[in-house]
């Protein structure tokens, strides 16, 4: 795609003529806006984008993008997006999904697309609730959450998206917050440039059925102290006044205060998103408040062969030396005989 780079778009060019129907105040609006900004900066011709979604509030996304789009069926977007990318590796393929779509009904496709490392970008809107069906618990709902289908609180353990991605041998995982347009845009650009499956978890607010679920972490007043924005090569430092950081204490991460017990910036862990061994990244992805800050930014971004390239290279390699070049050759191959 490198030779066809263009730089002529504004976010507006990616807005379709459809009226956006998400609830006023829904986090999805901000995600849409961030993605449109990111696409405008990528320099990829507009016709090369394909947005594939499943079912759920977030899955309406393709209708609002002036690109090729396919709003499919519940849970299957990973599989459909895989088919699109393998059929035409020249396309920039994006999957839009939610916590129910990707992790419940679509769990199998989700882990397998990651395992295969097909070069698609998956934006997973995580609001820890089923919104479109009006408020039932999801695979990421906190244990004990009271919803319409758990009137006495859920009794099941939630998935952690990052843990699942790394467990499926994922090579790119990032986390952002719906309303943080600057961080999100930057992450989408990095995800698009990454060759292989990229998963971006968006902490997204459902204003109707799970309002404020992420507020303990992302509220303006507290977010600097309760989140850590990771940057590759930078020390893991956070806090309103940059007074806190992370160190490795034995086999665990530990939050420390700079200046206390002689700790300086030099003692802090430096983020390495490119490290293939996922040990530290795994711990970072799983950090939960109040013990830790919640990690944002690109947590893991390692290189590996992509599925679609391997498929096409194998075909090209075999075709170079193949004796059968067309259907007539195949029909006449092997044991055949003439009847006079």
């Amino acid at each position: 795609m490198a030779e066809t780079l263009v730089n002529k778009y504004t976010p507006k060019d990616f807005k379709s003529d459809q009226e956006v129907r998400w609830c006023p105040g829904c986090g999805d609006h901000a995600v849409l806006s961030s993605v449109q900004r990111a696409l405008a900066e990528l320099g990829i011709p507009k016709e090369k984008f394909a947005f594939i979604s499943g079912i759920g509030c977030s899955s309406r996304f393709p209708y609002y993008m002036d690109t090729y789009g396919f709003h499919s069926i519940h849970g299957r977007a990973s599989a459909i997006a895989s088919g699109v990318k393998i059929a035409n590796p020249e396309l920039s393929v994006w999957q839009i999904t939610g916590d129910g779509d990707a992790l419940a009904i679509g769990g199998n496709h989700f882990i397998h697309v990651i395992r295969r490392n097909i070069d698609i970008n998956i934006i997973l809107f995580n609001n820890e609730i089923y919104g479109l069906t009006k408020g039932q618990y999801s695979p990421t709902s906190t244990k004990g959450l009271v919803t319409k289908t758990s009137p006495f609180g859920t009794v099941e353990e939630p998935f952690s998206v990052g843990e699942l991605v790394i467990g499926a041998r994922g090579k790119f995982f990032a986390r952002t917050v719906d309303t943080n347009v600057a961080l999100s845009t930057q992450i989408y650009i990095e995800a698009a440039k990454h060759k292989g499956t990229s998963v971006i978890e968006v902490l997204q607010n459902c204003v109707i059925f799970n309002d404020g679920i992420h507020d303990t972490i992302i509220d303006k007043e507290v977010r600097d102290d309760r989140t850590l924005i990771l940057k590759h090569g930078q020390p893991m430092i956070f806090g309103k006044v940059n007074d806190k950081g992370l160190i490795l204490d034995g086999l665990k991460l530990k939050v420390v205060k700079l200046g206390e017990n002689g700790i300086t910036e030099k003692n802090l862990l430096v983020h390495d998103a490119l490290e293939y061994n996922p040990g530290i990244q795994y711990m970072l992805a799983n950090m939960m408040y109040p013990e830790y800050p919640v990690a944002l930014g690109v947590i893991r971004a390692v290189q590996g062969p992509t599925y679609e390239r391997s498929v096409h290279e194998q075909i090209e390699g075999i075709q170079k030396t193949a004796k059968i070049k067309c259907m007539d050759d195949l029909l006449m191959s092997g044991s055949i005989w003439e009847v006079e």
Partner: protein
Amino acid sequence: MGKKSEVIEREEVVIRFSGDSGDGMQLTGTLFSDTAALFGNDLSTFPDYPAEIRAPQGTVGGVSGFQVHLGHSEINTPGDFSDVLVAMNPAAIKANAKWIKPGGTIIYDEGNFTEKNIEKAGYEKDPIVEEKLDGYNIIAAPISFMVKEALKDFGLDPKSVLRTKNMFALGMVYWLFDRKLDYTEEYFEKKFQNKPGMAEANKIALRAGYYYAETIEALSPVYKILPAEIAKGTYRNVCGNVATAWGFIAAAEKAGLKLFIGSYPITPATGILEELAARKDLGVISFQAEDEIAGICTSLGASFAGNLAITSTSGPGMALKSEAIGLAVMAELPIVVVNVQRGGPSTGLPTKTEQADLMQALYGRNGECPVVVIASSTPSDCFHFAFEAARIALEHMTPVLLLSDNYLANGTEPWRIPKMKDLPKINPPFADRKEIPFLPYKRDTEKLARSWAVPGTPGMEHRIGGLEKTAKGTVSYTPENHELMVKLRAEKVERVVNEIPDLVVHGADSGDILVVGWGGSYGYLITAVRELQAAGHKVSLVNFNYINPLPKNVKDVFRRFKKIVVCELNMGQFADYLRIKHQEFTYEQINKVQGLPFTINDIKDKCIKMLEDK
């Protein structure tokens, strides 16, 4: 060639190789049928093996068989009853006793009829006596002993020696049918190129069997089947699964598209995925999915992206694909879904045949969800109908369901090889630049097919999906629009009728009974009907390949017969379908649900009874 004491010339003969799963019966049968085909016989074969990979040795459950029907005249079925049975163990007798023609020949391996094996097969002492087969032409050959003798100085381990038993038996059968050994010998030379010792051992066992048969002369009568009168041309043997796979490759070439198969292994459809996975030389993209749903969904993605996309499965997988077929109907994307039917419901009889997924194909989805349904009817015509299914899907922008079955999938027959230049070009309705701004559900007036704008095409960005839409592609829940779109999608499928051939009547176009079949039971029905016709009965056959829509001339054909008898391997699904579509007729039924094809007599006896009842 040795002296043949008594030679019987026959029009046709059926031979069955039967033994333990590990006895190599499939290979033995295949080598025999290839040799017969090269000789110029017409033939039809059918493998019959257990679902278990290695069922307990020596038990009836572990018996694997391969039946070959060869003839001087046209052969349409693998045959019902065998003239010759090769039984490698007592269990093979147990499994096949009632399928041997009275007075037929049974060759068995004496060395394997041990007390233990006899007991395992459920006999007390002597299977031949207990099955009342003593009057048959019984040849107890010491096969195990003879291969040990023949290969004793060969330095092979005892297991490998015994593995050549099937070749000894095959050698005997070659003598019995007066066939040459060269094709089989060449096969081993090629197969064991790097293990000349193994090639030689198999060849020695083969020749030992041949000379043994010649020496004992007990094998008379020797059957002589002259080459068949077959149309001029170049031929090969083909099974239904390979023919199906090749039909799609041919269609992709004629459409100028890449072929994509997303699929999940399932018996008996796996052969299609395996064949296409091997065809990277022709650029086929094969994707072994994580499940049946991903099989069709990756294909649907590939279709959206502009490939000829197909998926293959069997009944249980078909159930899992239903929702995605509905999406294909709604998104109006071309895709072919192959269902190689097996015995159901649920896991059912994975390695047996049935035609019980017809209603599932026609109606097994939510909403008003019509698709084109086509059924192949012989192993070799799977090629033609796969090609046609792809052509219709691509040119009409619709999913097509192609029904095959276990009997077609694994059965083989000689096939006159088509030439690509004789096949029609396929013209998918790709959107051209005049259609900007592109409206995804705008249709052509003739077929009602929408245009296909593939991602990557500048200026045609658009959105499709499972929600109801207007012609412009906007989501719409308007009552009138929904009804309009439902009718348009149905009408689009109906209009395929303009491109399918009329029903062909085999026999006179009027008479007492019209035998009606569909799909894979053709071979049995045509054989039975021809025998009835030869006996002077006014019976004809129509066999449907196009199920939805039905051909235009159905009514015109049906009304010329006194009785219509629908024969199918289910409880009457096609009969019920005809009752919906052509209510003006009365339909009699012949049904069988045993996981087995019809026998000729199943059909003949019942037709004769109906003729007497009139």
